[in-house]
């Protein structure tokens, strides 16, 4: 009887250790696989981009102001107008989304009654789930004609339209994360400020938002990441003319929409094909830099707060 018991215990002990090991391995595998995939994508982009530079020199690629890969006379592969367009549309979106988003977050965390907050927050999160094609469609049938009417232009396919739509798409991210940050600020900050005679407005602007700045900046950076990488919406709403953008009321063409619009019908293994991968690489580097910057800012503020 006794021997049986010992044997039994030993067996469970071994199987438990094995189980632990398996679980450990499983999680390690999950962790490492995203790293592998990321490196794989990066390697693929680099190796597929390189052949483009046999025919196009790097300077012409980065600073050329004409993108015309299927020209009648001479092909050109300058991405400067697209870089300018991407930044224009993204900055425009942030210009609209940050005040609106942070304002909404402050309202939800400090002003709104719990009941309003309970209803509003899920609704804002649903906004994040709307497919980008649907938002692009709204840009064509709703925002575009509205812009055309307000500004007296013939059509609404322009950078402003793209910025408004991207702002709508970035809002849920910015609101959600900013609101979490503001809610998590210790109540003592709030009470100390009010006890010193500050009004609620002064408390929000001068105490709570500065205290939660790292989280708010991270929220805005994530929103920016979404805006830069968004494809379908800008493709549908901005007109996609390859010329250098002149104003917010003129058509623009971002890096993402160029890739999306041309990759489907490009002849494989041609300079044009490789150049589109080079565009992808540039986009990858930009989003990487945005994420890196937000990380550095976050850490800096964390240190200050300590």
């Amino acid at each position, binding site marked *: 009887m006794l021997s049986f018991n010992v044997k039994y215990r030993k067996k469970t002990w071994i199987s438990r250790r094995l189980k632990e090991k398996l679980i450990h391995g499983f999680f390690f595998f999950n962790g490492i696989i995203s790293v592998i995939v990321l490196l794989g994508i990066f390697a693929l982009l680099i190796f597929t981009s390189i052949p483009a530079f046999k025919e196009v020199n790097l300077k012409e690629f980065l600073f050329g102001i004409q993108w015309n890969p299927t*020209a009648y006379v001479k092909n050109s592969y300058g991405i400067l107008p697209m870089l300018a367009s991407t930044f224009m549309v993204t900055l425009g979106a942030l210009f609209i989304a940050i005040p609106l988003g942070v304002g909404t977050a402050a309202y939800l965390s400090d002003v709104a009654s719990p009941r309003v907050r309970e209803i509003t927050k899920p609704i804002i999160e649903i906004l994040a789930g709307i497919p980008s094609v649907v938002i692009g469609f709204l840009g064509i049938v709703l925002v575009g004609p509205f812009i055309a009417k307000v500004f007296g232009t013939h059509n609404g396919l322009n950078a402003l339209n793209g910025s408004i739509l991207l702002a709508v798409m970035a809002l849920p991210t910015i609101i959600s994360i900013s609101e979490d940050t503001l809610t998590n600020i210790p109540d003592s900050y709030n009470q100390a400020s009010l006890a010193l005679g500050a009004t609620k407005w002064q408390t929000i602007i001068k105490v709570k938002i500065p205290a939660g700045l790292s989280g708010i900046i991270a929220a805005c950076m994530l929103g920016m990441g979404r805006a830069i990488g968004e494809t379908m919406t800008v493709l549908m709403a901005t007109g996609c003319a390859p010329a250098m953008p002149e104003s917010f009321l003129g058509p623009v063409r971002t890096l993402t929409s160029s890739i999306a619009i041309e990759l489907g019908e490009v002849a494989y293994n041609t300079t044009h094909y490789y150049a589109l991968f080079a565009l992808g690489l540039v986009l990858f580097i930009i989003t990487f830099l945005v994420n890196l910057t937000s990380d550095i800012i976050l850490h800096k503020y964390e240190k200050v707060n300590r």
Partner: protein
Amino acid sequence: MRKIRIGLIGLIICLIFMTSPAFAEDMIQIKGSDTLINLVQRLAEVYMEEYPGSYIAVTGGGSGTGVAALINKKCDIANASRLMKAKEVAQAIDNGVQVNRVVVAVDGLSVITNGNNPIKQLTTDEIGKIFRGEVTNWKDVGGEDMAITLYGRQSNSGTYGFFMETVLKGDYSQKMNQMNGNAQIVEAIKQDRSGIGYVGVGYVKQSTGLTVLKVAARAGGIYASPLDSDDVKTGVYPISRPLHQYVNGTPKGAVKDFLAFEVSAEGQKIVEEEGFFPIPKEYKELNSKIGL
């Protein structure tokens, strides 16, 4: 929905194809141009109904995708709304693929403006100037004083290239809005009084709020409409193009049967129902060279 279903059927057939070689001989894979996809799908459906036991899977992705698949021997027929480029032909030869071309239909490209624009007809020369960006105001071609907004296709679509080579004979204005498909151009021009664009005839037949311009090959010539089937067939309408299918080598067996069906009187009737035009004589001769 139809596309999804055919895609699914294609997938299932692919699976069967992989496991049992018995089906392989009757199975036809067609891939390529988005201009041709609806037409070829319709042709394939009718063919499969008439000849039970035949399997045809039609997918899109663009002319470039189709040609690339043919070069890599991943499909039997490549739909293309443009001719293969020299580089693609060279790649095909390297891969041991000997490409042959079949013309299945003719597409009239229509030039469209907003219904409220008083301009109803232009010459190809004027259209060329407008799209090259040399004429930027409607008053210069006899219209009202209003800046022109250009709408076209993305730079590697077959339609873009064809229009550039036959009408522009030069580079497009960099200010042309590049739209992702025919339907988007139609929608944009319906809303934009100052707009002009080009789309396949099939896309404007049932549209309201648009003017399909009558086009003359030269000043003083006859202005013809792409909606008039006779003008396109006889070549009076100046902007029409053949739609191609590429095959590897001389077509045999199931592929040959299907191609023969496409160019037959019955197939050409479907071509007309789908908004395209039947094959003219010169291309019939080309087709007959590979036994069709």
